[in-house]
């Protein structure tokens, strides 16, 4: 995930992804406070309302929660939830694509399994 915000995808989605990455990489451990929307706005040079929308996306999913008057925090178990979500995405984006491409090239399931095994050892 790059440091820059790109202008061809909704920015609130990119903010949510950046927070997810920080949680996955343990830069934001569970129960840690997430930067405020104004801090996100200043750092990424974006509209604070857009930053708030990204944060709220994760609140809706139970990844973050709000402590009234203090700010946003990473929920307990958030990393596990994200891990499951990313596994599903991994299956859909990489595994399915790989199997389709393998079929096109006439690679059998056994050959593909062997490739994965030997690839993993490298």
């Amino acid at each position: 995930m790059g440091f820059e915000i790109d202008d061809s995808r909704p920015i609130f989605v990119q903010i949510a992804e950046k927070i997810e990455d920080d949680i996955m990489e343990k830069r934001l451990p569970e129960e840690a406070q997430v930067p405020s929307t104004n801090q996100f706005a200043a750092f990424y040079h974006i509209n604070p309302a857009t930053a708030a929308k990204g944060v709220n996306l994760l609140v809706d999913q139970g990844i973050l929660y709000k402590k009234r008057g203090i700010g946003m925090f990473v929920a307990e178990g958030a990393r596990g939830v994200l891990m499951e979500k990313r596994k599903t995405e991994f299956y859909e984006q990489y595994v399915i694509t790989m199997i389709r491409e393998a079929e096109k090239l006439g690679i059998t399931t056994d050959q593909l399994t062997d490739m994965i095994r030997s690839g993993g050892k490298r």
Partner: protein
Amino acid sequence: MINYAVEVNRLTKSFGTVTAVQDVSFKLESNKIYGFLGRNGAGKTTIMQMLTSQSFASSGEVKIFGEDPYENYNVLRQICFIKESQKYPDSFRIKDVLKVSEGIFPDWDEEYALKLIEDFQLPLNRTMKKLSRGMLSAAGIVVGLASRAPLTIFDEPYLGLDAVARGLFYDLLIEDYAMHPRTIILSTHLIDEVSKLLEHIILIDKGRLLLNEDADALRGRAYTVVGSTSSVQSFITGKEVIHLEPFVSMLSATIMGALKSEDRSLAAEMGLEISPVSLQQLVVHMTKSNLDEKVGNGR
């Protein structure tokens, strides 16, 4: 109930036989940053002049904070309009400009104004006549920000400002807006520079309202496919094409609509390359008039 800072209803402005603004309606919610976009001569400035009661509508209605702004002191003092090539009397020093502004705007913050003067390195005692184009623009920006006006309008306020000073303006704007939310209209051609600051886009083309949408909803709204002419032509059948550009035996087509996963796999099978379209590219494609008709026929 939503609080509207600006309500424009069927606004029309004609100069003789020329219709500069035609039947434009939109509402701006309080405390959002709006991007007012469009080509030169699209009618943006004319609309802003009508919002601020500097020009009269031929027909239609303008309401600012729920009231008619015409000769309405209560409403007008809540508006700060910073124009392209802002003009102050030649003999005014920057200091005098601040003094006058303090008298006009009820929410004026003198301390903040002086901090901004330092940020932009403006000479307080120099007269307008002796300021460079960039300094004049910076002085306008200082007034616009320090006015903290509930409706602040910047009409291409960056003439003569270098990239560093423009970057400073954007940073200060976001920082101060976060602390003191207010309705801001930013009219600009430098879309790439400001698009991340904008929450909502109003796009004016040939005097008409072309788009009125959330900025984030527009991102990812269009995409470009490039590949051999025949493949691209078959791929775009039944799709809304907003731009076509042939190159040798290749064709590049910009398509309006979100990229569906089946389209993505179809493009991959056909060997087409897909690239995203930025907000600025989208606006350029949508307002490039000479192509509209050609593309329309191909649909």
